[in-house]
């Protein structure tokens, strides 16, 4: 089955395909709430290679943060569970590790940073001491080597005033420096993969740009893998190599960053980009997507975007198109428009 929109971009040489650093497939997560079981994730899959930044993009409630929590096995409540799927990191399946085995992975192999550094930094502890604690806990350095390791971590987050920052409490730092301190802590054990959940959403635009440059730099310099979770397509365009779009708990499209922005396929992706472009161009009437996201307590049969879609067909009500999303291809969309071999709308 040939896909003309893929063929159109074949001018660029495809990357040689090394074994992925992280390989997630068939991931389904259930949250038990008082109103019933919420199917927060349904058959989510993606891969991250070394030296590559991928974006998981979507709107609030689409499951992007839940994806990160499922991978790290830090779900909100004890009653929540990953119902199925695999999470292979450097060849090991994280879902079958013991809790103590998983604890060694978190922070050391895979680190995570968040939107609001203030809630992940201890307000009563100097920044330098907090970073030292992480390093000591993972046995990466101790005694005399510890101070040097803390300074290295702060330096790798491009903090120029290392001594002042190390000796400060979190509240004494600006928002941008706090996020850098959190990044320094995440980098302290030299993780192979960094998961960043809305890392710049709370920051001003000028600070945001610096933090994004830092993340991109780390990916290239350390050959680290980066999973950037965001709702902001401007951030995606700035930092990421490939894009996974989530909608209502499912991955509905994946593509290289240029393909995605130039030729989005899924009607939802197209709606998002059209909306953003009309805003940037100052159109008198902005393009928007009508309707609201479905309730995940009782997701609709067939395509979850169907009720909001202008291209809906009979098949869309009957069969879920995302089950046939092909992760082996350069790009694919979980949409019946692209399953008839035409690739055209």
């Amino acid at each position: 089955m040939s896909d003309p929109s893929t063929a159109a971009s074949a001018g660029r040489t495809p990357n040689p395909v090394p074994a992925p650093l992280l390989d997630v497939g068939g991931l389904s997560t259930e949250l038990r709430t008082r109103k019933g079981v919420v199917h927060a994730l349904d058959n989510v899959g993606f891969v991250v290679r070394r030296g590559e930044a991928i974006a998981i993009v979507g709107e609030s409630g689409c499951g992007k943060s839940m994806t990160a929590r499922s991978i790290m096995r830090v779900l909100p409540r004890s009653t929540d569970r990953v119902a199925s799927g695999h999470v292979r990191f450097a060849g090991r399946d994280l879902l079958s590790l013991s809790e103590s085995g998983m604890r060694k992975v978190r922070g050391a192999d895979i680190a995570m940073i968040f939107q609001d550094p203030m809630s992940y930094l201890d307000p009563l502890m100097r920044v330098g001491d907090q970073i030292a604690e992480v390093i000591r806990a993972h046995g990466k350095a101790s005694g005399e080597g510890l101070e040097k390791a803390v300074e290295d971590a702060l330096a790798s987050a491009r903090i120029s005033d290392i001594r002042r920052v190390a000796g400060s409490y979190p509240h004494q730092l600006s928002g941008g420096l706090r996020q850098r301190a959190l990044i320094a802590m995440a980098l302290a054990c030299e993780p192979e993969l960094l998961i960043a959940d809305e890392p710049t959403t709370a920051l001003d635009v000028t600070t945001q740009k610096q933090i994004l440059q830092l993340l991109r730099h780390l990916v290239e310099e350390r050959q680290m893998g980066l999973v950037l979770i965001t709702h902001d397509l401007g951030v995606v365009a700035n930092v990421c190599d490939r894009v996974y779009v989530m909608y209502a708990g499912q991955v509905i499209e994946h593509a290289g960053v240029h393909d995605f922005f130039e030729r989005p396929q899924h009607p939802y992706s197209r709606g998002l980009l059209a909306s953003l472009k009309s805003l940037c161009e100052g159109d008198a009437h902005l393009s928007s997507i009508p309707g609201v996201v479905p309730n995940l307590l009782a997701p609709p049969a067939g395509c979850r975007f169907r009720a909001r879609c202008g291209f809906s067909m009979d098949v869309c009500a009957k069969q879920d198109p995302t089950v046939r999303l092909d992760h082996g291809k350069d790009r694919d969309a979980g949409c019946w428009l692209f399953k008839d071999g035409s690739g055209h709308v």
Partner: protein
Amino acid sequence: MSDVILSVRGLGKSYGGRRGLLGGSMPVKRAAEDVSFELHRGESLGIVGESGSGKSTVARLITRLVEPTAGSVTLAGRDFLAMRDEELRSYRQRIQMVFQDPYSSLNPRKTIAESIRGPLLERRERLSQQDMRERVQRHLRDVGLNPPERYTERFPKDLSGGQRQRVGIARAIAAEPDIIVADEPVSALDVSVRAQVLNLFNDLRARKGLSYVFISHDLDVIRSVCDRVAVMQAGLVVEIGQVRQILDQPSHPYTRQLIASSLRPDPSLYRDRPMERAGAQPAR
């Protein structure tokens, strides 16, 4: 002069400076300093700036949610800051506010109809129950919540973010104001919904001849709803003028920096050229 609906002169707000509780003197913090602008009838004026620039303070000063420590506010030709009691109550209806987070600005225990009835009662028109019900429904229809009966008896928690913000707007227009002061009204909304709400702001202005003071950190949002824009930094207006002119030919270095830092949804701007080295800019 007749078409100026709001005139702000030398407006300022400083905190502290007096003796603190324990006898030490508190340092003076200036949240806004010498802010001046005029808003014409039917005009939409944007205020843009980063956090701490004083843009939200200005919104609170011109609506008298916070009392200024300097300057004057003239609303429909009258000295707004000198008003008291009944006069203040009636003039306050002319300038209504819409907040960023409708979840925290709507009373969670009131139904949508009750929330909109508040400003209607404040108008003291002695409406019959039937008229009141129709008025509530009309305002819900005005903001695109159709059919209104589907929303009147629900609570804020039952609505999506976009629907809640529409209720916030309905409550503001229920007072039949001349001016709406909107403080980051779409920042908490998702991209696809953001466009719907911005369209609503534009439609309402055209239909009702409203004037806006529209506060946002997002230049694209300002471009889509404003005629003029004031750029604020550290409590001061550093540049003010037509949106197109300011965004296309900014004269103040801070404005230029804001424009250069806003990210475009276009990877070719970033990814085809070598990355600017992150180390080149020292951390602040």
